[in-house]
């Protein structure tokens, strides 16, 4: 856990003013009350470009308290640009404690992955979402997709999966894999790999999603059913890697491909850097 730095002066706690936070919290409450439903909110201009997690940052800012411990990951990693800059942003504007350890965090903001260490009750995971509408690529009209959600007309989602099988012989959607939440709303888990979809199902953790450019928030409350879509004859397959991590030897975890040289050398290692490091530390101690 890094030491608390004195926050930059001249800003409200966690950058956003209290009225804005209140507006976002109201949207979040509605989102939690209707799991998987996309709630419009008045997304603010943030001091970072769209696509860098402005939605997630606003959600985090709205729920952050002085006692919270924040972890930020990009892919599974704590030390890539996006994660580092957002973590620093909240260190400066809120002065909250930050951590890289999943178990110590109370709020985890993520761009793609859900940490390998199982999340627990009381933690909140905030997802940065680029495109919240799962039906968007097949139906470009917002009026039409809203009607489809309202009337629960989700046949189109299976058209997408059908296309996958017709073209590739299997459901080739490997991220943003559509799920049905609490038996009602179709939801895009966003760029999260399908490998992590099962972790969303009946998770003890509150899951919040923020899309800054598209101005939508949505949520999955703890212990809510999240079912990945599939066909009877082509069931959902989270597709765990067969290889163990080259660094810590963990199996059944999500791996990143790391190019080692320019002659084809490569290595597959845990995408969750905290998980990998703590595995290696344990192995070193024993």
């Amino acid at each position, binding site marked *: 856990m890094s030491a608390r730095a004195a926050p930059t002066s001249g800003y409200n706690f966690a950058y956003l003013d209290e009225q804005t936070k209140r507006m976002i919290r109201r949207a979040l409450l509605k989102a939690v009350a209707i799991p998987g439903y996309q709630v419009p909110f008045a997304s603010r201009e943030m001091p970072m470009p769209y696509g860098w997690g402005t939605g997630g940052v606003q959600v985090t800012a709205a729920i952050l308290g002085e006692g919270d411990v924040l972890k930020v990951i990009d892919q599974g990693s704590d030390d890539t640009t996006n994660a580092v800059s957002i973590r620093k942003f909240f260190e400066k504007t809120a002065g909250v404690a930050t951590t890289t350890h999943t178990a110590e965090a109370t709020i985890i903001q993520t761009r793609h992955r859900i940490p390998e260490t199982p999340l627990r009750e009381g933690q909140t995971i905030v997802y940065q979402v680029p495109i919240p509408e799962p039906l968007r690529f*097949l139906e470009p009209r917002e009026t039409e997709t809203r*009607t489809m959600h309202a009337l629960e007309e989700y*046949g189109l989602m299976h*058209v997408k999966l*059908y*296309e996958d099988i*017709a*073209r590739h012989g299997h459901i080739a959607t490997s991220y943003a894999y559509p799920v049905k939440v609490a038996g009602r709303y179709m939801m895009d888990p966003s760029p999260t790999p399908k490998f992590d979809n099962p972790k969303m199902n009946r998770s003890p953790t509150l899951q919040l999603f923020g899309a800054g450019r598209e101005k939508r928030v949505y949520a999955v409350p703890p212990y809510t059913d999240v079912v990945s879509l599939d066909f*009877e*004859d082509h069931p959902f397959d989270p597709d765990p890697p067969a290889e163990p991590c080259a660094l810590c030897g963990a199996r059944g975890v999500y791996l990143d491909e790391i190019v080692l040289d320019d002659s084809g050398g490569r290595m597959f290692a845990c995408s969750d850097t905290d998980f990998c490091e703590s595995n290696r530390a344990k192995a070193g101690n024993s």
Partner: protein
Amino acid sequence: MSDEAPLLIAEGLTKAYGSRLALENVSFSLYEGEALAVVGESGSGKTTLLNLLSGIVAPTAGKVAYRMRDLRTRDLQDLTEAERRFLMRTDWGFVRQDAREGLRMAVSAGANVGERLMGVGERSYGRIRNVALEWLDRVEIDRDRIDDAPTSFSGGMRQRLQLARNLVTSPRLVFLDEPTGGLDVSVQARLLDLLRALVADLGVAIVIVTHDLAVARLLSHRILVMRRGEVVETGLTDQVLDDPQDAYTQLLVSSVLQA
């Protein structure tokens, strides 16, 4: 057929856009398995009529009633949007003049045919694919085109694919808006042949809007001649076309080029 209640009833249908009347006081009944042609020059209100009948546009006055699968006749205005949309993708079909409006151009032919099945809850890829293959056979599209997008299809093939996509849920009523528009004569003939066979086979009722009297003659039992938003003449197709009573119908019939 005559002792049954009509499938679709239009009563005093009127549509005004501001002070301009697009359609005035149109009434008729359509029975199961019957083919009705609506002919007239462009701007005569044919497409407006079709939009009113299918509930896409609400009438200014008058009403449309439809006999649902449970045999209750219901006013379209009283249906909820969910019911109307369900009707639209199960019991009805709508074949557009422009295939790009009626098809999903970005997904394969098989997915286009299968969409309605998935919409009503079919969750087996294998079964959807088999039904799609069957339908491609029926509309004379080669089986090996099942995974091709309709963007790679010719105009005639696209229209035939639209038919398959609409007929896959065995609708009882299909609206066709100038289905042969923009197709060359031999392709038109093939499409019409196919359409006639399918309609006879499946016993669906159709309302076909066309400006082509030959299409009306070939496909329809009854005909509605429209001009300036009003029905000027109606009756059995052969009767009306062989012995037109109204001056405008006479003009229309006589202006067909004799080959």
